[in-house]
């Protein structure tokens, strides 16, 4: 078998030593990796050298445009195996949270295609398990080769995208292309375990993602935004708290355990909401301040430091019908669904055979979310700003609704009623007290949060739906009927079957009848030499 891949090891001092090569046997095992970091693995594929190395923290780092190289789990403490993919990878994982709260990925099978459409099982293709902390998995964001999985098993370019909760079992079938994994097809249950189905999405060049990878853009101040975060009572302070701390906070300011009158603190509570984004943890604090008062029972994991966070998922190449011709824009529709906004019907001519790039930014103070959609089509790599769309992704915590019971305990005290007499029917009490009671209610949501509160029930995936009609092609179609041309020149420029719009037949002598006959034949289609 031909040698496809050669490996070289480079130690921290830059000394390289060859390790061997890989034939089409797909898997190469190596022993003894240097314990001095950083060190590098270099490999040469099709004449180009790539570097796979580990940084000082032993995190794997890859060239952004490297071909698919699957770093299989270590079979022993000193043995490493690599699988290289030249064309298409079929892989199936099972994701779930195990009983210990760890996020687990089981590799069910792995098949690769070297370009000949023969899918070969990868040797030692039994079951590999990837484990990482659930908090990291719950990002719901692509895990390519990141440190989240490094200490256990690394599955390169694994696209994990799911809301996972303890006890959930999700099955996805990532359909990798040669390059970054960009798509996941959530197949019907009956098809999930069939290794025969693959939907190859061509277009966008050779499918290799050439960008700098998923990136966190401008985490922090963004021009045009002002910050109102200012401690010490002169502005708003945004804490990030866990649900139990939020519960404690509400219990404190609506209950009677800490304050004689907590209306001041209720009014100082401007907003409480959840975002579909994992805010970066900061220094944990014990006790937070509200209206300059320390509430010791409430811990916070962080202050929201970044008014605006933005994120750019990978670019998605689009083929459309797969024919790579006018069917991509005549017989194909492209619909982008943006959570918190809705559907966007894309102009097929703007995206067919090109790529779409969605970038979004979330205002962490209000939940406002803005999408920027960039597109290009097959004929022009230049991306344009197709549109921008905005919505609100915050989910307000229904403070006055959920915590009615302690609230009405307060009310009953104010009204001089026995608490037990009113708890059974808070609605009736509200009616009886009328406007006076309503003025007692804390005025929350003054942070500009206007949005439906059922956001979590809505589809939360940014997805691009492509619907294309089936095109019927027959053998030798162009030989019999040609394809649209609209080119000029002389008749002799063309070869094979050709139909003409018009031909200038005044360069030679023939009768009118003969020229009419010639024109009829040329318009009807002739076979030019």
């Amino acid at each position: 078998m031909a040698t496809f891949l050669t490996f070289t090891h480079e130690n921290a001092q830059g000394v390289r030593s060859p390790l061997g090569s890989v034939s089409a046997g797909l898997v190469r095992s190596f022993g003894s990796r240097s314990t001095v970091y950083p060190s590098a693995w270099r490999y040469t594929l099709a004449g180009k050298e790539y570097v796979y190395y580990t940084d000082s923290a032993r995190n794997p780092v890859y060239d952004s445009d490297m071909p698919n190289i699957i770093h299989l789990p270590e079979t022993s403490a000193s043995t490493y195996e690599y699988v290289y993919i030249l064309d298409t990878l079929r892989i199936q994982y099972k994701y779930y949270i195990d009983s210990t709260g760890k996020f687990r990925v089981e590799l069910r099978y792995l098949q690769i295609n070297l370009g000949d459409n023969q899918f070969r099982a990868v040797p030692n293709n039994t079951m590999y398990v990837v484990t990482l902390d659930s908090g990291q998995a719950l990002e719901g964001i692509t895990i390519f080769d990141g440190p989240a999985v490094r200490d256990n098993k690394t599955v390169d370019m694994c696209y994990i995208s799911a809301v996972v909760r303890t006890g959930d079992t999700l099955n996805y079938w990532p359909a990798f292309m040669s390059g970054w994994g960009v798509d996941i097809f959530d197949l019907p249950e009956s098809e999930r375990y069939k290794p025969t189905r693959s939907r190859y999405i061509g277009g966008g060049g050779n499918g290799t993602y050439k960008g700098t990878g998923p990136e966190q853009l401008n985490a922090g101040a963004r021009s045009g935004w002002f910050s109102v975060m200012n401690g010490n009572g002169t502005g708003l302070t945004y804490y990030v708290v866990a649900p139990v701390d939020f519960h404690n906070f509400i219990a404190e300011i609506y209950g009677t355990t800490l304050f004689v009158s907590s209306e001041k603190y209720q009014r100082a509570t401007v907003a409480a909401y959840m975002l579909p984004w994992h805010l970066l943890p900061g220094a944990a604090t014990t006790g937070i301040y509200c209206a300059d008062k320390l509430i010791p029972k409430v811990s916070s994991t962080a202050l929201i430091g970044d008014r605006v966070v933005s994120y750019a998922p990978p670019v998605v190449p689009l083929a459309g019908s797969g024919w790579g011709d006018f069917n991509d824009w005549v017989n194909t529709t492209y619909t982008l669904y943006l959570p918190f906004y809705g559907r966007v019907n894309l102009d097929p001519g703007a995206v067919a055979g090109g790529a779409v790039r969605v970038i979004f930014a979330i205002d962490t103070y209000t939940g406002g979310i803005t999408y920027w959609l960039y597109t290009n089509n097959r004929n022009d790599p230049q991306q344009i700003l197709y549109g921008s769309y905005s919505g609100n992704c915050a989910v307000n915590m229904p403070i006055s609704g959920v915590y009615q019971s302690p609230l009405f305990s307060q009310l009953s005290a104010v009204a001089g009623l026995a608490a037990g007499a009113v708890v059974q029917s808070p609605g009736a009490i509200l009616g009886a007290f009328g406007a006076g009671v309503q003025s007692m209610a804390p005025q929350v949501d003054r942070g500009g949060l206007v949005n439906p509160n059922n956001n979590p029930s809505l589809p939360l995936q940014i997805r691009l739906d492509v619907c294309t009609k089936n095109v019927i092609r027959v053998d030798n179609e162009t030989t019999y009927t040609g394809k649209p041309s609209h080119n000029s020149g002389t008749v002799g420029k063309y070869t094979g079957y050709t139909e003409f719009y018009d031909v200038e037949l005044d360069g030679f002598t023939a009768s009118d009848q003969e020229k009419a006959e010639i024109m009829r034949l040329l318009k009807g289609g002739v076979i030019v030499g």
Partner: protein
Amino acid sequence: MPTVTLYHTSARENELNKALTGATSRACKFIENVDTGRPVIILDYFAEYSGFNYALIDGYYYYLDPPELTTGGRVSYTMRRDVLMSYRAGILAAPCIAARTQNDFNSDLYDQRQAVESGGTNYSLFIHDFSYAHNQICLAVIGGK
């Protein structure tokens, strides 16, 4: 006496450059008062008379109708001028705009003859998942630190 070159061709009528085989030159006569676009020629009998369907006379190409045997032991062919082959050089040099071509086409142009089924294939590309399951609640207060 004009000379006719008889051929056999299996080319289609719309071929600009027809492949000709079996060239046989023979003396012929035109019958009187014929249209040069559809002349009739008379030849002395020869045994292979039925093997030809194409002819060249005086630089013009003709299709041959099936031959007729006439009185006096002659063979007669009614001919029809092939304007494509006869004026081929002029046609090839003629400026034109091509509508459909076997080669040199533009696949981005809409093809009205494309057969398309009403049904089709749908697929989805998932770009990003949002999730609220981060166990994080943002709490905005006045008078914090």
